[in-house]
């Protein structure tokens, strides 16, 4: 049953998201071949009218970029709300499946789309700006670059990339759970469900960012005070600890949000 739920949730999300992301990639590719690529080969090739068209194209790309990023959040949020708390909820909540299965299905489908979105957005940027000389330059100086950033040679790019991937997966899930818990709290305000959800979302995000910046600041101050004795590995230590802190914070909030959502869905469901 969980598999079927996930299938239908993916179907619903993909309806809009596939289209948005294909358009983003196409625009990035066009921008690359029509403008950026030519400009790299020959910086003086751009005429006045060409510059105007290029500006328009860049604006189009930026708009699509924003649409993809915010559209993904919005589509996930709307699907969750509609499927569980609007009239559609009368069908969803009377399917012979548990609330846990409903929520897991929503979490899996939402998080996976969130990750796909991040990957495709990054890919579109790479498509647009990466060109061969840049890669060549980087290949030559990559160890130096790492050292410049303050990492000891022993760390290597592999570990750094791994750390970012872990953070990336966890923050996708955390983002989705923040949306879900906000909507589930919001629908308790039976006359202002949508407003309630939006207010909850910003309230929760604010609290989380206050917590993380307060702890982060306290941590930076203590780190700076120790800096003199820290030596070479200092930046690396700082990076590592910040990373671990971010991951722990996200895991804890995700688990707490999941439990709250599940409990409220179980005990306080009230379809209008």
């Amino acid at each position, binding site marked *: 049953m969980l598999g079927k739920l996930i299938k239908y949730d993916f179907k*619903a999300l993909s309806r809009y998201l596939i289209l948005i992301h294909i358009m983003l990639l196409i625009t990035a590719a066009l921008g690359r071949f029509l403008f950026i690529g030519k400009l790299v080969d020959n910086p003086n090739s751009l005429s006045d009218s060409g510059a105007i068209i290029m500006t328009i194209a860049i604006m189009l790309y930026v708009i699509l970029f924003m649409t993809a990023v915010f559209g993904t959040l919005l589509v996930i949020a709307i699907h969750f709300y509609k499927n569980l708390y609007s009239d559609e909820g009368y069908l969803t909540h009377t399917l012979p499946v548990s609330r846990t299965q409903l929520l897991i299905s929503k979490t899996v489908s939402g998080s996976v789309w969130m990750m796909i979105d991040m990957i495709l957005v990054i890919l579109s940027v790479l498509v647009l700006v990466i060109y061969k000389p840049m890669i060549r330059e980087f290949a030559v100086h990559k160890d130096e670059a790492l050292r410049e950033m303050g990492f000891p040679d022993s760390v290597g790019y592999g570990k750094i990339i791994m750390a970012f991937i872990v953070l990336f997966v966890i923050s996708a899930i955390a983002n989705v759970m923040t949306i879900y818990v906000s909507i589930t709290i919001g629908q308790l305000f039976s006359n202002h469900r949508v407003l309630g959800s939006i207010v909850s979302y910003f309230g929760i995000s604010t609290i989380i960012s206050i917590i993380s910046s307060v702890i982060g600041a306290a941590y930076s101050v203590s780190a700076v005070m120790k800096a003199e004795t820290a030596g070479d590995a200092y930046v690396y230590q700082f990076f590592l600890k910040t990373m671990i802190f971010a991951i722990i914070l996200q895991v804890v909030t995700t688990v707490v949000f999941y439990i709250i959502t599940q409990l409220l869905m179980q005990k306080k469901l009230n379809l209008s």
Partner: protein
Amino acid sequence: MKPILECYGLSKSYGNGRWALSNLNLSLERGQIVGLLGPNGSGKTTLIKLINDLLVPTEGSVQIDGILPGVETKKIVSYLPERTYLTPSWKVRDLIMYFEDFYDNFRRDRAEEMLEALGIGLHARLRTLSKGTREKVQLVMVMSRDAELYILDEPIGGVDPAARDYILNTILTNYNENATILLSTHLISDIENILDRVIFLQNGQVVLNASVDEVRMEQKKSVDMLFREVFRC
């Protein structure tokens, strides 16, 4: 066999000091069509939502086939809410596939037969259908399950009299004799003939639970007349 539906001291308050249901006790035997009748705000929809696990009781409990509402009861209860729960972008056949995927007791051939009789195409997009047609589609889906308890909340409210006849007929011909139908409506005279039993709700309590024959024999009144008398404003 256990009664299909039992309520013990069932109470529900929405937290505003008013009780939508208060200490309701009820037991329904299998194999009958039961009318759940009462004025607006008498607690009909609250009771129906509690049976379908869409609300949690404040006090007391409800059991379907001896089990508390949950995954197992949802397999045997087929529920038609008063709201339209259809996803507008779907086609009728998407909905059929959805029901087939989730309900083991869904009979696709029965659904297709009824839809054909009502002149509703499988490739029609739900968004393009009229409100009445959508209600018909929903009722067809609900009645195409071999459920043990059907709960129909205002099943004929929004459809024309001709379709109403077809739907009532559908209900009568499609339910097997061990199944129970709990039907809530305001249009009492239209459905009076198919009811075996009536339950009158008022202020969240049962004020009458009698078979239609009893009402007719003892009170010498139709259910409709009795309703107007009991709930006179």
